[in-house]
């Protein structure tokens, strides 16, 4: 069974560590905030200038001056701070953020990422994605394994304009978990979604990947 959005977020939440500073992208990555293990402190960074992002506000708490990078109204947790965009990207570019979890349109077998532009269609811009993949210590992609047409998104090389070169450490999809092996410069299949076979994963992955003899099923409850 392919994993649903919340299960994907739960798998991604395994990458969190106590005290981590983390930037979450828009979409499924945002859901990771709902799966922080009890007792663990994680500081969520929002690149528009907030460290210590909290949940959405109640109607009475809504403040036009307090939004996240998706322009949604949010709150701050105890100990949150505000800063300028230049300071914010100093944190990001300067390697001070431990983990970024992002969405993707395509990932290449060498870990290149494309997630900002489809030529000929509406071009919205890269926002902070290029800075995040260039500067954050660990870069994790969470996405559907195939696009809406059922075509593989993990490719020998990206066909869309790149966000970053050789920048992705881990890919979590509805079918599997792939980890970059730096010495081989290929992703290694680490886990399968429950009930999904290695054959299905191989068939739906255009990229060259390393498939070990025995690949365990991911435990998601």
């Amino acid at each position, binding site marked *: 069974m392919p994993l649903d959005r919340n299960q994907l977020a739960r798998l991604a939440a395994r990458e969190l560590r106590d005290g981590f500073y983390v930037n979450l992208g828009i979409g499924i990555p945002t859901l990771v905030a709902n799966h922080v293990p009890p007792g663990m402190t994680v500081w969520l960074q*929002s*690149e*528009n*200038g*907030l460290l210590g992002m909290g*949940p*959405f*506000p*109640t*109607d009475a708490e*809504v*403040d*036009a*001056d*307090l*939004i*996240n*990078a*998706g*322009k*949604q*109204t*949010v709150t701050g947790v105890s100990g949150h701070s*505000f*800063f*300028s*965009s*230049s300071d*914010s*990207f100093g944190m*990001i*570019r300067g390697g001070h953020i431990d983990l970024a979890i992002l969405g993707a349109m395509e990932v290449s077998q060498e870990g*290149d990422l494309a997630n900002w532009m489809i030529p000929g269609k*509406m*071009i*919205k*811009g*890269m*926002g*902070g*994605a*290029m*800075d995040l993949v*260039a*500067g954050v210590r660990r870069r994790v992609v969470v996405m559907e394994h195939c696009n809406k047409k059922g075509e593989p998104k993990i490719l020998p090389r990206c066909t869309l*304009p*790149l*966000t*970053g*070169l050789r920048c992705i450490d881990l890919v979590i999809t509805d079918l599997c978990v792939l980890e970059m092996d730096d010495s081989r410069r290929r992703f290694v299949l680490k886990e399968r979604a429950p009930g999904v076979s290695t054959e299905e994963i191989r068939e739906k992955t255009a990229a060259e990947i390393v498939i070990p003899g025995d690949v365990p099923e991911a435990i998601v409850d």
Partner: protein
Amino acid sequence: MIDKVHPSATSALEGLLESGMSIAVGGFGLCGIPEQLIIALRDSGVRDLTVFSNNAGVDDWGLGLLLQTRQIRKMVSSYVGENAEFERQFMAGELEVEFNPQGTLAERMRAGGAGIAAFYVRTGVGTAVAEGKPTAEFDGETYVLERGIRADLAMVKAWKADRAGNLIYRKTARNFNPPAATCGRVCVAEVEEIVPTGSLDPDSIHTPGIFVDRIVATRSEKRIEQRTITPG
């Protein structure tokens, strides 16, 4: 002493505007934008503007107002997703757009304001952003050279100012405003409240008055782009 305080947004921009000029504008989405200065800029009728701003507003607010009237020739932005008129003009080739990574845009403003002509970043290496730009190796990694921005005018939004032009921003409405304020040859700040000089805590000032030439207090609407709430 020169009085930095102006009675209206129109007055605060008087004598500063001309067609073809470049303007750095603070704000992220609709948060922390100098909304009344943008309206006064529209009403001035100047055209062929180059605008440095992270976003381009929405169709009927913020910089979107200047797109409606076709006063902007070129936008330098990181993300412009919420604006149908922008999309139309861009796809029709009527509007020039230069996409900058968000952090690169912020640092270009900061650098320009600090007298730094150019700087090296890893952001964008190997992507379209780095095409045609010099690269260099430092400690075994490739960096791309990006230019500082000096704009003819900076327009920013702050929460409080004193009459000396010291600014304090509020929450995430700070965003691009501090770097934008420094990179204009002239900086005009729209604020919610002007307090007597000396009444702001000097330790809490975000933008010192040296960077701010004119101030105007306005009643800002502060529109919300995505009102997202938790029931309860």
